[in-house]
Structures are given as C-alpha cells and as structure tokens.
C-alpha cells in the first residue's frame, strides 16, 4: 500500500546501493521503485499469490512466506534495511516480527496507521462506530488489521529496547509536524537496536 509520498520518504531514508528486505511487500511497487531509483539490492516476502505474480513480473526477488514464523534463514544484520510498511499491525505476533526485523536488518523502517487520528476519535465518540478512514479503510469483519495502535503507543513500545532515529508523520499527502498522535493518519519510524 505504498504511494508516491511513501516513495519520497523511503528515498530520503535509504542510501544508494543498500540491501533492503521488505516484509509484506505486496505487489512490489516500493521495492521496484527503490531498485530503479536507489539501485538497492531488493528482496521481498509476501503471502498473497497474486501479489507474488506481480512482483515476479517486476523482476523482483520475492518469497512466499509467513513472516509470523520468523526469518530464521537470514543471518543477523544481513540487510541494511528491513521494511515493515503497513505490515506490523497485520501480523499475529508483532513483537516477535519486529524483534526478528531488528535482528536481520541493521535498520528497520516501520510504517503504521495511527488509530488515534482525530477522525478516528470523532467517529467512535460521536457515531459510536468503528471508524473507516483512508488509513483504516476496512469493515470490522474483513479487516486484515489485527492490532490497533497509535503513534504514542508505538513510541512507548520502543522506549524499552529500540531507538527511534527518525520519525515522519503524514495525513493524506501532507506532512504533519504538530501533534502527530492527533493529526497524523500515518507514522513512519526509522529504528535501530538500542
């Protein structure tokens, strides 16, 4: 679910010629972009068959695998960057997956939808219904999202043993600089091990 805005952000965070592993890479749009613009050595992991067929068409190296079972075949620090863009909230064991990503990658980039965005709050408060927004576009019965978290939840979680080197927030195609936990639809974090 990467868009042009994501592309520019990842371009600014990822160095030329880096090695990148995208966990839950979807149809490979972000990886293909990074491969052509930043000449990264790209690999993707994805569960969906149709998405894999589209990755293969883009000439990407992609593996069908469930990241909840871990990344045991990858050595420690074998990638410069591991990406978890709009993936972490969909896995069964986010803490384990993040730990594995931090083991395999020297840096990890996490992108999450912010459940504390003001539109989400007003939806629940005034309408009494689970919100459906741009960042959270699914009905309760068919959402792939298993975990709901806010920008602050994620920051709190990282306090334990992860360093947030950089963060970036946006709502639609605008950068959010003020009160991200309230104003941002998406949060992005560049992480490393403490």
């Amino acid at each position, binding site marked *: 679910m990467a868009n042009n805005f994501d592309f520019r952000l990842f371009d600014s965070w990822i160095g030329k010629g880096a090695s990148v592993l995208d966990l839950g890479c979807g149809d490979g749009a972000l990886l293909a972009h990074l491969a052509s613009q930043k000449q990264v050595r790209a690999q993707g992991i994805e569960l969906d*068959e149709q998405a894999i*067929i589209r990755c*293969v068409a883009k000439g*990407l*190296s992609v*593996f*069908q695998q469930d990241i909840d079972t871990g990344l045991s075949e990858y050595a420690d620090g074998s990638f410069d960057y591991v990406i978890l863009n709009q993936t972490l909230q969909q896995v069964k064991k986010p803490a384990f997956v993040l730990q594995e990503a931090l083991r395999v990658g020297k840096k990890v980039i996490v992108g999450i939808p912010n459940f504390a965005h003001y539109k989400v709050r007003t939806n629940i408060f005034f309408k009494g219904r689970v919100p459906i927004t741009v960042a959270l576009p699914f009905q309760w019965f068919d959402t792939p999202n298993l975990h709901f978290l806010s920008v602050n939840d994620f920051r709190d979680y990282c306090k334990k043993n992860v360093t947030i080197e950089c963060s970036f927030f946006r709502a639609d195609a605008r950068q959010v600089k003020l009160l991200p936990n309230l104003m941002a639809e998406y949060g992005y974090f560049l992480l490393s091990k403490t």
Partner: protein
Amino acid sequence: MTLQQVQAQSYTFDELALESGEKLGPITIAYETYGKLNSDKSNALLVLHPLSGDAHAAGENGWWTNLIGSGKAIDTDRYFVVCSNVLGGCKGSTGPSSINPKTGKPYGIDFPLITIGDIVNAQHQLIDHLRIEKLLAVIGGSMGGMQVLQWMVSYPKRIRSAIPIATTMKHTPQQIAFNEVARQAIIADPDWRSGNYYDHSIPTKGLAIARMIGHITYMSDASMAEKFGRKFRSDKALFKFGADFEVEGYLHNRGDNFVRRFDANSYLYITKAIDYFNILNGHSLCDIFRGLHAKVLVIAFKSDWLYPTYQSQEIVKACKLSGVDASYCEVNSTYGHDSFLLETVLEGQLISNFLLSVTNGKGQGA
C-alpha cells in the same frame, strides 16, 4: 500451434563417460523444438520432462501443451523451445530397449546404471550441437526439476535462469520407498524375464501396477475425493475382487495405457536415477549454488505430498544462503503432485512473467 513448427529430430554422438565410470556409446538423443531460434541465439529454453514424459512436450497430446505454444505462457512466438527425451528413456533416446552395438540385441539390464547427472550431461551435448552458448532458461517439474537443479550445479555458466518446479534436492526415504515398490512389481512379473523380454510378451502386469502406484502418489486425498468419490463404475466387474469403484477403474486404465507407451526396463533405470539423486552430494546448502549468476524461480504446490513444499523451501534456502537471485511461490492447488501438469493458469502466469523479466534484464544486476 501449427504442426510445421513441431520438429521431431535426433542427435547421435559417439560416447558419454557416465558418473559410474562406465562409458556408453553411441548415444542418440531424440528431441523436438518449437518456435524459432533468434539470430543471437538468446531466446532458447530447455524444457525437461518428468519420469513418464518424453520429447513431445507441446502440440497435439504434448505433456505440457497447456503451457507451451503460440501465445501461451512459454510463448513459441517469442522463444525457441527444446525438449529432449532423457538418456535411459524409451522414446527415441538411447535406453535399455535400444540395440547394444556389441551384441546386436537390446541392452536389457546390460544397460549401465545412469544418474540425473548423466542425463544432464547428454542434454549438454545436445545444446552444444545446437550451438546455443547460453540458455535463456531451463524449466522442469518433478524429475524435470531435478534436471534443472543439476544444470544449475553442473553448467551454471550456460544458463541465464532456472525454474525448478515441484521437486527436491534429494530423494527422501518415502520417495525411494514408492519407487522400490514400483520396481518390485515389474521384477516380480514372470514376463520380465530378468529384463530380456524384448522377443517375448512384455511384463504388462508389473509395469501397470508400477504406474498405478505412481498415480496414487501424484494425486491428493482431495483431488481423488472430487474426481471419484465413492462412485461405482457402471460396467461393474462381475467377480468378487474386480474394479468396482471408479478410482479402481481409473488406476487400471492408467496402468493399461502406460504399458503401451513405456518400456519396463526404462522405468527401472529412470526410477533408480531419481532415487540416487542428491544434488548436495556432500556439499552444504550454503555453497551448493555458489558462483551461480542465474535468476531462479522455485514453484511448489500446497497439496503436493509426494514432493512436499518444505523440499522446495530447502532449494529456496540454498539460493538465499548462496546469494542467488531467487523467487518462491507456493501455488494453492488441490491436485497434489500432478498440479505442475494441471494447475497451469497460475503456474503459467508466474513462468511467463519471470521469463519476460529475464529476457528484459529486469531486476537485480540489470
């Protein structure tokens, strides 16, 4: 596909040094080609057949005709496709039913034991003969996939890409066990006559049973339930242990058809070659594909219990550890091992997308 495009040919060369140390010759390899080789010879694909296949992969009754042809996944308007009958086979290539030049009679069990390595070395001679310096891809399922892996290890510089499908790096005890039952069915048939049956009636019973066992392992619980259920045949047999159920009729039918087109001794030799197959052969997963610069696409099928997906994942793991540019897809299909012959829509999309990306030099190192 028009029939003019199918070219059945053969190539004979003097001798091949086998992995066993023995020498065999002369050797004839029967092959077919589809499509046209382009001027810089960069569009050639080698398709490798499974146990009971032959050189006739495409066109009418071709074993992979769903995938190979004009406008199909392996598009003969774009690619020049070569498929040869394996060494040890019985469809035009030298095998136990061929005439032994020393005796003037069929080899029978005087034919030397052969390996997947020998089969690939013979194909390599054919590719040299066709003056193809680098194959765009080697593609095959099951035993064909083993040959793909052998090409990746034996001739890494001669291939730009490889697609091993529904296969394994080494035959496991369960797989060897099924082959051994099949072989013993042939050997137990009095008509087998220690392999010297060519002047007599052939061991039809034994070979048919071998094929029946094979077919059980190629299907799945789900595909059998869907295809046959517990339905009875309409022309029910009249004696107590006749083929009452449709599944029994199907197996008999497959067995009976097979004996008309396959040589029992070839079945013995080729299943042995499969059982000996172990591409690792003392190497570790980390270095088996080291130095291979080809792109690899590994395909497995969820319902395949003869070559379970973990075996394809091992191939993927070896690629990752060796830094080989690989992709892996586990296709959701209920057909069991037969999926690689039947579930051709998804498989075809994967293959055609992959071949195009290799042709266009997309992806890493481009």
